[in-house]
């Protein structure tokens, strides 16, 4: 398991403009899609879907 840079203190993510994505990419590169990665992926997918699903109708024009 690679040693990862610790995350910023709670609430400081935005201020530091430090984002976790390159570390996640590196983690996936080294470890593959382990179960916890798959869960994280599914959570983000549901998160996006729920935002759209909460609005009525289809607002798009394609």
């Amino acid at each position, binding site marked *: *398991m690679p*040693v*990862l840079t*610790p*995350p*910023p203190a*709670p609430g400081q*993510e*935005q201020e530091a403009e430090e*984002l*976790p*994505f*390159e*570390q*996640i*990419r590196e*983690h*996936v590169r080294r*470890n593959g899609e382990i179960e*916890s*990665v798959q869960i*994280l*992926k*599914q*959570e*983000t*997918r*549901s*998160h*996006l*879907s*729920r*935002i*759209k*699903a*909460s*609005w*009525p*109708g*289809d*607002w*798009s*024009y*394609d």
Partner: protein
Amino acid sequence: MLSPDPDPFSVLSEEYQSAFWPYFQVAYERMQAYAETLSPALRDALKTFGPRGTGPLPPRNLKPHSIWVAQFFGITDEEVIARAFLASLQMELHCCLQDRRIDGELRRGLSLAMSDALSNVLLTDSLREFENLAGHEDFHRYVRQAFCDLGEAYAAEQSGALANLSPEKMFKAVVDRAAPFHILVASLGLRSGRVSGIAPCSSMTCHLVMWFQILDDATDWEVDLSRGRRSYLLHRMQQFMEGQPFGEWKPTDVANALYLFGGAETLLGECVDQLGAALAIARKHAAPPAQADTPESLVHWLERFLEIHAGARRWSIARKWEFLKSVAV
């Protein structure tokens, strides 16, 4: 573990339905009455829009564009709003039939010929009502422009030029597809006499269209990818695909880019930017009804949408930091 993702979305949805339900109910009833004026064959064709063929469009699926645009121009006459709402619905159903035909996705039982016949009647009736509401000879010019822009947007997509456009031109190619929205704005803007408000209101609607296009692409990207259709979202994923040519993208790689490597958060950030731009225009140019402290006001809802998307982005980033912490232990 972060507490389960708080579900502000369902709360917001209830609040939204509650604020607009009376308008939606009226629009639904008028649409039902309109359906009765159609010939039997077209009435049956119109039913293909409803759930299980009961159409057209249940009230829960309606949206408040007409109410907000009326507010923007200071129009409070409920009869005018109801007429604009019905004309908007007719126009959207017309566009929807056209899109289904273009995409080869007509509902079972609806022939191409019937789809065209219904589409023509909807367009005719919608434009007549919008023109009556506008009461101004310039209305024709706005409609023509909206459909010309739509044609240019289709052409940009068809030619594959979209990938090479500047961000500004790509934005225009996406938002120019919203002809029904622009026609609604022109009609109510001319009616209100606040002609100088038409351009800012159209600009505001462009930001709203862009915002929702991002969310829409986020749920449809797998279909778009399988068809080789480079939607706006897939364009924006390029930066996360490590130089892979579009033709070689696999669904798993795109899913990783979108859900793990920053795609979702980038797009939510764009949603926040689009909503922020729309809100700034509304605050600067919209008439008092749009800025009032009421459950249905435009500014109130733009603020709510903005807040919810910014929160969604923060949550998603925090969840990923938490993941990293958990795997580092």
